[in-house]
């Protein structure tokens, strides 16, 4: 076993031992250290609803932020490739600022400085913290997504645009019908990364008081300190299921839209 692996095991074991010491349970060896004590798992499952609400908040934040990031980031990437003048410069500068600012700072600015309002949708309302969270995470994602699309738009051969122009398509139409469909296909791997990053970064919204999955986990194991490992494993499993299924779905999307290639050239 590698040195790193041994260290990791030792760490987990001592964590388990510490937990058992607090709870007064007898030491039962390595397997219990990984799986934890039944009483602590029972505690986790008893609070599954509480964590479930956090998971829903995490999913909502992720979906809304990714969508906002796409709606803003795709045009921004296109402007960086095809635009010029002040617009291009403004977009470039905004991207650099957003990518260069810690996400906690962005969220705090949104919530405390900009002071975004609560949004009423009739059936439900979105709290101002949630709005700030979506705007902060979404705009930052837009700044990163713009770079995915900038790169893939630029990667499509110039001859494609030229051929589009040669049959009488305007520049916009040639980009729209010829370049964009190819660039979007090439964007899927980068987009998978971005999705995974945003999903896990949603935990930062604790900074503006939103109790999403990880924050709720923190609350739980603060209450029952023997269950630290169990709570963290449970939460990790939820994150894993979310990233895994979404990445698989994007894989499927990618192969569905993949451009067939033959053996002949």
């Amino acid at each position: 076993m590698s040195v790193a692996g041994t260290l990791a095991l030792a760490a987990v074991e001592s964590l388990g031992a510490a937990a058992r010491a607090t709870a007064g349970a007898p030491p039962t060896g390595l397997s219990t250290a990984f799986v934890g004590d039944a009483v602590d798992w029972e505690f986790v499952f008893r609070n599954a609803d509480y964590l479930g609400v956090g998971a829903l908040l995490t999913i909502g934040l992720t979906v809304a932020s990714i969508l906002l990031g796409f709606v803003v980031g795709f045009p921004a990437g296109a402007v960086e490739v095809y635009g010029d003048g002040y617009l291009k410069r403004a977009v470039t500068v905004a991207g650099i600022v957003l990518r260069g600012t810690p996400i906690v700072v962005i969220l705090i600015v949104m919530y405390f400085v900009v002071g975004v309002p609560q949004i009423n949708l009739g059936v439900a309302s979105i709290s101002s913290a949630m709005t700030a969270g979506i705007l902060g995470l979404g705009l930052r994602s837009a700044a990163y997504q713009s770079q995915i699309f900038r790169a893939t738009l630029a990667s499509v051969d110039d001859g494609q645009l030229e051929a589009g122009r040669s049959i009488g398509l305007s520049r916009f139409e040639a980009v729209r019908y010829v370049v964009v469909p190819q660039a979007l296909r090439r964007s899927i791997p980068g987009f998978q990364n971005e999705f995974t990053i945003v999903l896990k970064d949603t935990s930062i919204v604790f900074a503006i008081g939103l109790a999403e999955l990880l924050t709720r986990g923190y609350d739980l194991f603060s209450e029952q300190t023997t269950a630290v490992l169990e709570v963290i494993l449970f939460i990790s499993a939820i994150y894993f299921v979310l990233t895994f299924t979404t990445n698989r779905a994007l894989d499927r999307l990618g192969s569905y839209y993949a451009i067939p290639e033959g053996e002949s050239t």
Partner: protein
Amino acid sequence: MSDDDFLRVTDVSKWYGEEQVLHDVSFEMDRGDVTVLIGPSGSGKSTMLRCVNRLAEAQEGSILLDGEEVLSPDLDVDELRREVGMVFQGFNLFAHLTAVGNVALGPRRVLGLSETEARERAEDQLERVGLADQLDSYPAELSGGQQQRVGIARALAMEPKLMLFDEPTSALDPELIGEVLEVMHGLVDEGMTMLVVTHEMSFARAVADEIVFLDDGRVVERGPPEQLFERPEEERTGRFLERIASHD
């Protein structure tokens, strides 16, 4: 030179930065003519061709197409390109579309035909270039010769009044050149007006009404093929043709 020339190129000059790549190029064509531009690589023949549909911008001179000034800043270039088909050396097929999709895009989005009409037109054009059995193949699934024939069909689907060919067979394996030239021969027989840049001298000799020999961005010599090939007046023309002939 008559006033009713279909295409009249007069004293066209072009610079890339400091470097002048076309020097006062002039030639003209009648409707239904086939003109072939020949010359060593870097002689400006592809650039000249691209100036005709404004994929390259000439800085000086005049290009009259059907009486209209192509180089006018007020010209609608999309309108011009609707009427002037172009076939590229590297095919430049839309990689994400099938053969039909490639050919139908222009009729659908530029001419505004319905989905069905555009598809029908695309199928007709692909049949015309002998690809009725490859309608739903993607470019990467086709041979180079087949891809170039799709490229020709794509240009033809716009029903152009002038076709530009930019070294259409230069990127092809030798055994695939014939099928593309055959399609081009067919177009000549149908009376299509064609301006062709090529190194295929036997094709040029067989179909051209006029050959224009360019070197170093200048027209060195022009004339009917039998004159240019048999009795070139300029020494440079003769030398170029000898070099080419050893590969032909």
